[in-house]
């Protein structure tokens, strides 16, 4: 009896947590902490490096529309983010206005109208649209699309010119805010579509069948059961798309004529966005010039952060609601 007892205790090794477990768990936690560190680093480094220009700046950073961040002989450092922030928001707003209705339509088409096999293919095509690099959109927009858009712009200026947004004369190059907005709209279309498609597909069958059982047409079913259910998801998707449009650099940098001003006219050149301005100015910038670009980058970071947070908030509210 005693012999078996002692062998039992020997068989089950008593002891501490295993070394492998501790090492692995800590590596995993370390990776998570590293991500937090990287993000803190992004914020800290940007702030630190932007200070030199912000302290030298003689204009008001938030309200000025000037841009001469490098001191030269007899030149003061004067720059501000106002016009660039305006251009950034304007471009994103155009993209959003153009893309959201179409995205909702595509999502409805994929979920409720298209035959199933076609729907899978379409979903794939929309993903493809998202996979095309922005520099290719920029190239296409600059070399091909702006020429195709010119007749439409002339039409808009001729017949809708009384609206300040479309006042003539039309830019001869076509490299205008509206062109940039259209390309951005194509780029954010997949994001909004994907999000809307997901929520539309999640509408409980019971809701839809309840509507149909009451004799509703397909549209009435969509209006009464699908759209109210999917609204937070669509809004969240639209805001995520806007976040993408705000930060999009290359397509805008390549399409918009380089200039910096505040203008409501969409058919002329004049505006510029923060991201594009950084990409265009950086290769020639030195000293406080680089620091000033980092400062406006920080502003862009803050704007996108707010928009993305709001989007996540809207989406997660919906999740809590459905669960």
């Amino acid at each position, binding site marked *: 009896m005693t012999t078996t007892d002692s062998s039992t205790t020997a068989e089950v090794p008593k002891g501490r947590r295993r070394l492998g477990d501790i090492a692995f768990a800590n590596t995993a936690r370390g*990776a998570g902490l590293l991500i937090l560190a990287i993000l803190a680093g992004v914020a800290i480094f940007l702030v630190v490096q932007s200070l030199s220009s912000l302290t030298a700046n003689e204009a008001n950073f938030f309200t000025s529309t000037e841009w001469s961040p490098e001191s030269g002989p007899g030149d003061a450092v004067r720059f501000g983010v106002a016009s660039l922030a305006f251009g950034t928001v304007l471009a994103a707003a155009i993209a959003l206005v153009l893309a959201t209705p179409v995205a909702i339509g595509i999502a409805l088409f994929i979920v409720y109208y298209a035959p199933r096999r076609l729907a899978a293919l379409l979903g794939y095509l929309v993903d493809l649209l998202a*996979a095309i690099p922005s520099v290719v959109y920029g190239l296409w927009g600059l*070399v091909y699309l702006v020429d195709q858009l010119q007749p439409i712009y002339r039409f808009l200026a001729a017949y809708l010119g009384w609206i300040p947004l479309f006042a003539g004369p039309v830019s001869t190059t076509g490299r205008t805010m509206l062109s940039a907005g259209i390309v951005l709209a194509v780029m954010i279309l997949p994001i909004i579509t994907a999000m809307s498609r997901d929520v539309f597909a999640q509408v409980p069958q019971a809701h839809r069948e309840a509507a149909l059982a009451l004799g509703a047409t397909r549209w009435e079913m969509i209006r009464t059961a699908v759209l109210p259910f999917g609204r937070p998801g669509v809004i969240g998707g639209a805001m995520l798309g806007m*976040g993408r449009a705000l930060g999009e650099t290359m397509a805008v940098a390549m399409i918009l004529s380089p200039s910096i001003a505040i203008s409501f006219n969409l058919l002329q050149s004049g505006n510029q966005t923060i991201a594009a301005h950084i990409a265009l100015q950086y290769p020639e910038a030195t000293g406080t010039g680089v620091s000033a670009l*980092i400062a406006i980058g920080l502003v862009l970071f803050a704007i*996108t952060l707010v928009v993305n947070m709001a989007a996540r908030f809207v989406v997660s509210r919906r999740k809590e609601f459905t669960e």
Partner: protein
Amino acid sequence: MTTTTQRTASGSSGEGPRTENQGFYTRQLPKYFPAALLAICAVVVSAVFALLGAFHPVPVAVVAALLYLVAITVSSAVIENSRRAKDRLVTGIVYCCFAIAVVPLVSLLSTVVVYGLERFNLYFLSVSMNGVIPSMDAGGVYHAIVGTLVITGLATLISVPIGLMTAIYVVEYGRGRLKQAITFFVDVMTGIPSIVAGLFVVALWMMVFGPGQTNGLAGAVALSVLMIPVVVRSSEEMLRLVPNELREASYALGVPKWLTIVKVVLPTAVAGLTTGIILALARVIGETAPLILTAGMASTRIQANPLDGDMMTLPVFIYQQVGNLGLSAEAGAYAEERAWAAALTLILVVMLLFLTARLVSRFFSPNSRG
């Protein structure tokens, strides 16, 4: 008394069951009606435009679509009823939305392919721009391909361990505050504009190496900032798909947690993890803005050392060539051809990655094996 006269557009009511069930026999447009109407609209509009001598596919399509929407609504309202008319109008609009999405995709892909093929050949893929001046009908993207491979390869090497381990932490270990914080900040990181990721590395490099230092490693770090959150998100999703029963089976065999993760969870999820990583790679391989800031735009020579100054990549090459469009007519034309050919190369690379991801997820998921 024939039972076959159901669902016709004729409104005449018979006797017997038909009068009895009157409410069921609404007047309805025949199935082929919308398609036929659309065809008629298209023909009429093209004819009108042609007579006016202004035929152009885009306005014709737009006007024909609008005409169709009006015609279908009116005819449905007249023959059927207003509710059906609205339904048909919305159906038409939804189809139009789909068409609107296809137009830019087809236009973009066809332009890239048509223009790109002019210069896309073995020569273009196998030579660099070293010693090529803008007006020369020569040069290629070999150096940019090498740079893209080195930079995205490094970015993958940095991102995958960090991203995967973070996902493992969140799914397998994470509790409470730290887990919430990590999930939240990964979301934040997903939204970082790519140019800001570039600026981050610029700022970091300035503090560590002094101003004006651009090289491939800086580019790889910038891309990692963009790639890590994508890897975390997709890996998290895949790890959650592994059934808990498998973890329990392993624990019940007396396998410690870390070996369970390494030998049961990860192998079960490997197809999904790989797919996610490839798709993340496909996303960052086209990034341009952060590379302009960190890896420079000046390089024309073939080099694979990520610490040795500027490094060219495919997307930056496109941007660089677009910058040369304004030079002399000849040089501008060559630059444009190179830009399109490089765009075609880049799109092919992205498609190849997509295809690989598809194949991996189809053929290597555990359920379809054997």
